[in-house]
């Protein structure tokens, strides 16, 4: 299992990095499972998402929710609610 994870905006700043690779198995293989895995492995990520409050995610550059599956070689992004326009 290899997943590229990206971070944007305030999450990127508070976590202090813009991407990382996950190469271990996480369960369930969903957005929620990956987020829980990241929180366990990176206390700074857990702290950052707690401060941000609402978090959103994308899988392979489509908006995703907690149950969206994360397959091998997926690109998953976490970020705060969007504020364009």
């Amino acid at each position, binding site marked *: 299992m290899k997943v590229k994870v990206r971070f944007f905006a*305030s999450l990127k700043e508070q976590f202090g990095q813009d991407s990382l690779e996950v190469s271990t198995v996480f369960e369930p293989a969903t957005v929620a499972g990956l987020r829980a895995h990241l929180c366990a492995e990176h206390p700074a990520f857990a702290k950052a998402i707690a401060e941000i409050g609402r978090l959103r995610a*994308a899988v392979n*550059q489509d*908006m995703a929710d907690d149950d969206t599956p994360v397959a091998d070689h997926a690109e998953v992004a976490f970020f705060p609610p969007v*504020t364009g326009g």
Partner: protein
Amino acid sequence: MKRSKVLVQESDFDVGAEIQWLRRGLPEIGAVATFVGTVRDINENSTVRAMTLEHYPGMTEKALENILKVADERFEVTSAMIIHRVGPLYPEDQIVFAAATSEHRQQAFLACEFIMDYLKTEAPFWKKEDTPEGARWVSARDSDDSAKERWEQAE
């Protein structure tokens, strides 16, 4: 939809020229609805000196193209487009241009508003403002979520 485009760019845009592009050679068009979003000098009671627009390259274009596709499925759209700027911007600068053409005005207005409401909640852009109190990320507005929800109820 006979013509559409999505542009994500640092440079400014010319609304008049873009409207020409939407209309050229399409005499069935009777209505052009457009929206321009601009940088305000005040937000949440603070002076805004400048802002930076961050985005998610690749996903941004995909998200905006999908918004146009759904607008075309839901409304009678002859042509449509979105331009969104990224990078540093200053008060009074243009940020976003959304436009839709149709035979009649109701469909053009609906499509243009739909594009903006979805862009506000579905396109991966984030604004960071430079204020006298320091830099701050703009918070998402609940009113943007409710603006999007009205289209879901209408389905």
